[in-house]
């Protein structure tokens, strides 16, 4: 394995984060703080508790998950799309680097960034609401698996996209709505019975539910099912990436 190449791409991507600190870290933290103000103050005054957890604390896992999903996708998609756009991808393609190494470095850097952001949001949230984490190991595992899976999804989007509009299409029109509708800010038990069933088709429900369980022991669906869904989604992304690399889809003509 070409570890030096992995390190080179990883460092390059992380350096981009340092160059764009405001956009990469500060902006998501500020927007998350605004969520606390809006949801915590406005809605929190009407919904004081959900299953014994204050509403402000209840939405923390959902907020972290929202950032994990969107940032993983946008970081990874931009990371691989930008060299395609500028033409510098020639260097990656002509280097002695395997497809696995390319994915590890780009998706690894994207996942690292979103996990860092998730942890920063966690610390920020602790300033606003009292937090408890009942299962820290599972919390970190859910965080890692989610970041890795959605970074792979972002990588796929970055390969597929041939313009900036397409790059934004999936995060804006699919990932964000699914996250908002996936129980980030409410328990699905609060929905009418029909919508409780419909919402189970939303994969984000399982991610948020499992992640929230690691904090408060509260889950909309079983933890095993949540874990299974993440692993399934991870496997699907890996399968798609394997196909992309086998065929050279939109990378090698």
């Amino acid at each position, binding site marked *: 394995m070409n570890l030096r190449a992995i390190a080179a791409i990883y460092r390059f991507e992380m350096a981009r984060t340092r160059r764009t600190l405001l956009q990469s870290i500060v902006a998501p933290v500020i927007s998350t703080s605004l969520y606390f103000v809006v949801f915590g103050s406005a809605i929190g005054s009407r919904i004081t508790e959900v299953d014994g957890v204050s509403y402000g604390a209840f939405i923390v896992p959902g907020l972290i998950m929202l950032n994990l999903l969107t940032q993983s996708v946008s970081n990874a998609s931009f990371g691989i799309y930008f060299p395609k756009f500028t033409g*510098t991808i020639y260097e990656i393609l002509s280097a002695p680097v395997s497809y696995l190494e390319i994915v590890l470095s780009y998706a690894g850097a994207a996942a690292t960034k979103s996990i860092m952001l998730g942890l920063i949001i966690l610390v920020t949230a602790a300033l606003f609401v009292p937090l408890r984490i009942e299962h820290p190991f599972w919390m970190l595992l859910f965080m890692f698996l989610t970041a890795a899976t959605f970074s792979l999804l972002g990588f796929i989007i970055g390969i597929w996209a041939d313009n900036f509009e397409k790059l934004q299409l999936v995060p804006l029109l699919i990932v964000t709505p699914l996250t908002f509708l996936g129980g980030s800010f409410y328990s699905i038990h609060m929905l009418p019975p029909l919508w409780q069933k419909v919402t189970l088709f939303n994969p984000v429900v399982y991610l948020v539910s499992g992640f929230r369980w690691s904090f408060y022991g509260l889950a909309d669906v079983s933890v095993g099912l949540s874990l299974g869904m993440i692993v399934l989604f991870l496997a699907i992304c890996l399968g798609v990436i394997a196909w992309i690399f086998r065929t050279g889809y939109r990378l090698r003509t």
Partner: protein
Amino acid sequence: MQTSLPHAADEAQADVAVRVRGLGKTYAGGFTALQDVDLDIRKGELFALLGPNGAGKTTLISIVCGIVNPSRGTVTADGHDVTREYRAAREKIGLVPQELTTDAFETVWNTVSFSRGLFGKSKKPAHIEKILRDLSLWDKKDSKIMMLSGGMKRRVMIAKALSHEPEILFLDEPTAGVDVELRRDMWEVVRGLRERGVTIILTTHYIEEAEQMADRVGVINKGRIMLVEDTAELMRKLGEKRLILQLSEPLERIPESLSAHRLELGADGHELIYTYDAQGERTGITGLLRELSAAGITFRDLSTKQSSLEEIFVNLVRSSR
């Protein structure tokens, strides 16, 4: 037209840096960029690949470097198949692409170091420093690439290609849009690399550069290799020669008695130009001079001129149309 195509048996594998056999490329849209290309590039040589726009030069280079998948055929670099043993093959190769594509927000030092890391090489600041100094980039090492001029960016791309100490270097139009001073500097670097035994494959529109620097020349047109030849041999074999006579008195037209010779008038009738095959058994010069004397045409000076590689190249491409 006389062509000389290499064949599998021509070169021993040990002497070959790049071997191409039966290579074909048809793009998804149906356009065939390469057809049945056979080519051997010898170790340590400077090989110039010439061809008009769209001839297939960049596709050929891109396949060898791993950027484009071949449709048919095989390519080896230093004996390693570029598809099956891509790591071993690509480690040997450096590429300076035609397009100016750089990481605008990175510094010169970082982007060159990044390229070295990408090829799995350990950090070697002394080597990076030497490359940057050789390419007159040392003063710019901490500058962001977007602050550099086009010529400087071109140097950065060469520095990136040299960062991992390749044994085979592809230069795809490296001097396009570059000023004279920069071109001279670049060729100094290329000469230095060649002296160290690096194999260099060059495409260029400045055919005089190929004429001066290349050991061998290959001409590609419509996806096919039309000719591969030692530069000097090519000039000797395909180069027509011209005898230019400075006439004592200008002529209005060439006399009928001289119509058997390939003659033309130049410089408003002050020059009589005779084109002949320098390799032919008889050049016809003696007979011509005799007939000129008989026709009462005298001259005060004479000179000869060999065809340039550019003229040979243009004639080859024209004849294939």
